[in-house]
């Protein structure tokens, strides 16, 4: 197990290195002068201000020095300064982080509860109407654009029924609609996988043995089939966290929910490159971390993985 963990940890290093290079070159790939682009939506800056910005961003140094400087900065939590708010990018991300984490966690709960229970019910009643209906709904679930589902929920539950506030993040009530929007979409993926995995598990010999022992059907399903079926589900749930994080980009801006996603969308619209770079790097590192954890948990649950 130790070797497996070590191997997985070491494999992450070149990826993070590559991610940092990709994000570093992002701004340099933008056609045209980065400084001019940064000021595209504002009044033209004076030549002195341009020179100052160029120096401040280190654009007057050789490229490898620029990269080194960039990495050193990141190691000290310095992601640069937002062009729009003039605040340090890192501080703004950290300030918004709790909101996004809360939203991701809440939607993950929605996704896992609805996804796994639907998948199990479908598998148990394979071929019956309840299985067919829930699987069609699951396909529909992966076909609905999240931002539209969000707007429709807003229309019904906030505008018409008045149950929840339209936007913001002041109370738990503000969390309900964005969390359900995000969670419902990924529950569809989890439900489909749980169903397939359950059907696979239900065909195994140990299920026949459990039934032969005289266990109740619920006991067989929950204690024997589900436990084994959950192994691949854990991985997909890990991957879903990444999906939820990036899904949150759009959903947060639909509900004007003050998280990292809404921050990113505003930064994109303003071409605030230091902010975009900071968020892209931050989310990619979190995503790599989450995937690593999912991999390790997978290895822990299924020893066969470790040795292959």
């Amino acid at each position, binding site marked *: 197990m130790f070797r497996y963990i070590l191997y997985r940890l070491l494999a992450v290093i*070149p*990826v*993070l290195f*590559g*991610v940092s290079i*990709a*994000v570093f070159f*992002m701004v340099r*790939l*933008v*056609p045209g002068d980065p400084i001019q682009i940064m000021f595209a939506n504002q009044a033209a800056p004076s030549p002195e201000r341009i020179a100052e910005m160029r120096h401040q961003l280190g654009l007057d140094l050789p490229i490898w020095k620029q990269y080194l400087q960039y990495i050193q900065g990141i190691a000290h939590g310095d992601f640069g300064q937002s062009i729009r708010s003039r605040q340090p990018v890192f501080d703004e991300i950290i300030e918004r982080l709790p909101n996004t984490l809360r939203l991701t966690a809440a939607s993950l709960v929605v996704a896992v509860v609805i996804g796994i229970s639907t998948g199990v019910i479908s598998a148990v009643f394979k071929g019956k109407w309840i299985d067919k209906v829930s699987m*069609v709904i699951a*396909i*529909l679930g*992966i*076909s*609905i*654009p*999240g*931002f*539209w*589902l969000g*707007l*429709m929920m*807003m*229309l019904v539950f906030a*505008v018409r029924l008045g149950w929840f506030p339209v936007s913001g993040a002041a109370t738990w009530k503000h969390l309900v609609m964005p969390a359900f929007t995000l969670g419902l979409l990924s529950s569809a993926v989890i439900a489909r996988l749980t169903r397939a995995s359950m059907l696979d598990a239900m065909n195994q010999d140990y299920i026949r043995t459990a039934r032969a022992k005289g266990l109740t059907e619920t006991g067989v399903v929950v204690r024997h089939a589900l436990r084994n079926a959950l192994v691949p589900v854990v991985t997909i749930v890990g991957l879903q966290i*990444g*999906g939820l*994080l*990036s*899904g949150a*980009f*759009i959903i947060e*801006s*639909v509900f004007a929910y003050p998280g990292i996603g809404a921050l*990113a*969308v505003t930064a*994109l*619209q303003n*071409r605030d*490159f230091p902010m*975009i770079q900071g968020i*892209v790097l931050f*989310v*990619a590192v979190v*995503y*790599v971390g989450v995937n690593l954890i999912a991999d390790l948990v997978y290895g822990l649950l299924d020893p066969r993985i470790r040795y292959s």
Partner: protein
Amino acid sequence: MSQATAPSPTTPAPMPLDMLESRRVVRSRSRVVLTRLRSNRLALVGVVIIAFLAFIAVFGPALAPHDPLEMTLAKQFMPPSREHWMGTDDFGRDILSRLMYGSRQSLMVGIVSITIGALVGMSIGLVSGYFGGRIDMASQRFIDIMLAFPDLLLALAIVAILGPSLVNVMIAVGIGSIPVYARLIRGQVLSLKEKEYVEAARASGARPGRIIFTHILPNSLSPLIVLASLGIASAILTGAALSFIGMGAQPPAPEWGAMLSSGRSYLRHEWWIATFPGLALTITAFGFNLLGDGLRDALDPRTQD
């Protein structure tokens, strides 16, 4: 099939036996797949939806009841009626006509971006899997780095670099989908290149290019087709999402995501402006997902009869 057993006199030269064999297998397999697909009701629903959309995309301009760009301020915010089936928007434009024109853009985003992703991904996967060694190492690390970004984030970052436009959205979504295809094809190649017929082709002196294109590629196409069909659905949704946040199609283009975005400000009273484009997107993605699912079941060798 008759060609394989009794070559017609017009055939200039007999084909090599292995090629005939693989063609015969491909043809009879595609027949099995078609039969299975036809018996899958949900997949047929998908096909009907896609055919309908393609019809609208081609003939939309001739069928649309109004000009999608014509602004008539006197007709602003009209609810669905006999004259405007889906109502009018904030500029008095007919929503149904805009949706019909928009179907072209959505289908194009789906098809163009998946073509970019599949072609580039497939090339990387083929070369990387077939030649192995350093090329494989390098390209796999490159793919690892791309996979470190959740797909929407990758598309967002690329659009940020290229600037907002529908063409850039297609490029961004296309690049974002490269890793999945590269991984898939590489896996296929790795298992196929150990097969006896590939060994035989190599032993008989066939060049790598010939082996890849006549033996490996045709045999790894089925999972690619499934992935592409499902990929078109998600590419259309991602493209619409980018337009929704203003990074894709620019006004007054009748793009579904952008239409939805302009409708959100009027959600309280004029619900139809944001509702219909979303419905159109859902139905489109649903069609491709149903077809993709049906294809997967039909092509799955484990369910072969």
